[in-house]
């Protein structure tokens, strides 16, 4: 049993690991932005009176939610070039994260929209608020508050999922770690350290989200 843990290679590589953290946050951020766009568009399309459009959204959501992210990203990265669409790994990663997060965002946002009571809108109008005010104060803010915990939870999930993008060598924390590992053969030390970094990232996100929520959504419900 001659193995001694040696974290010095990890300490030497710390600057590049921290860049990897930033890349992971950037990747997740871009993916989440795309996911929100898909989410809102999906909810609008889900409520359309065109049957095929509704079916398309439902099919998309079920397809994404019932297949692994790894297979989705492999499909985008390896299969799309065969139909003439070649994207670089980072763009593919953002697209994959956006599509995956988008399917979950559709379900979350739909729940938020459904949570708005029609009577509240009527009450707002009866009180003499104009339409813009009603939308901002009675529809948007409560709906945002209702979906905020699930949506931010989904954001953190997406950040953790982004580690899978290393499978197509997109630039983020896990792929940086894999490069260091293959140079130094210190697998355990490298992965142990970046697990800690991921934990720090998700903890920071969680804290930030709850601070924001306490400041912005701090009013009584009923």
């Amino acid at each position, binding site marked *: 049993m001659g193995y001694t843990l040696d974290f010095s290679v990890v300490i030497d590589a710390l600057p590049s690991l921290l860049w990897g953290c930033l890349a992971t946050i950037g990747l997740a951020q871009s993916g989440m932005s795309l996911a929100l766009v898909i989410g809102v568009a999906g909810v609008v399309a889900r409520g359309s009176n065109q049957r095929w459009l509704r079916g398309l959204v439902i099919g998309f959501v079920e397809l994404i*939610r019932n297949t692994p992210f790894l297979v989705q990203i*492999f*499909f985008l990265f390896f299969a799309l070039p065969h139909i003439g669409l070649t994207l670089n790994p980072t763009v593919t990663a953002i697209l994959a994260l956006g599509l995956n997060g988008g399917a979950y965002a559709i379900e979350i946002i739909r729940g938020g929209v459904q949570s708005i009571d029609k009577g509240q809108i009527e009450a707002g109008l009866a009180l003499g608020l104009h339409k813009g005010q009603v939308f901002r104060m009675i529809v948007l803010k409560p709906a945002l508050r209702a979906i905020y915990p699930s949506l931010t939870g989904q954001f953190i999930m997406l950040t*953790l999922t982004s580690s*899978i993008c290393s499978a197509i060598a997109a630039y983020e924390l896990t792929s940086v770690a894999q490069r260091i590992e293959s140079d130094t053969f210190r697998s355990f030390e490298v992965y142990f350290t970046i*697990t800690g970094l991921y934990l720090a990232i998700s903890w920071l996100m969680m804290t930030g989200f709850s601070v924001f929520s306490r400041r912005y959504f701090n009013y009584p419900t009923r």
Partner: protein
Amino acid sequence: MGTTFGLGELGFLIQGLKWTVLLAAIAFVGGGIGGLGVALARVSTSKPLRRITGGYIALFQGTPLLMQLFVIYYGLGLMGLMLPAWVAVAIAFTLHASAFLGEIWRGAIEALPKGQFEAARALGLHYVPRMRDVILPQALRIALPATIGFLVQLIKGTSLAAIVGFIELARAGQIVSNQTYAPLLVFTVVGALYFALCWPLSLYGSRIEGRIARATAR
């Protein structure tokens, strides 16, 4: 040179599917046992026990599954345990599932009305019969949709075993794709196989969720 996608290749994917199902089953059963322990520890009266299991859950929910696999996979090797790849991977998924199922079931136990605990205690039931006969049957019923939801996550999660080299469905797909140069077809088939496995479970989960929602609305 490359071969074309034929029955042999499909058979290879089905073999991979078999390992996916097996791995998910082991992790679900192992995680069910572990998760029960975690959930009971989370609602126990012992503060250190609650703290430790709380930290365990936070650790597994705050890090990527892929990292959990890597650390446990290489960590077991460092401890001098020369385990076959699938055993190491199964241990990792079991620990992962224990944390998530533990948290789901803790939530369900705490969602029960306080009167259930008090009534069971007033009837003179000790800890084991109180939990086994009164609390857990009700809690598990509430938790069933979330539990099935997690099972779907777990099945999808086993695809990450591909990255550490274990040949399950996703890895089999990669191999066949490299042999046949037909990634479009191969990953469509792989995706369809996962879908065929997960979709019925998802449907079943949301059906029970609807049934429970209707039952509690009454």
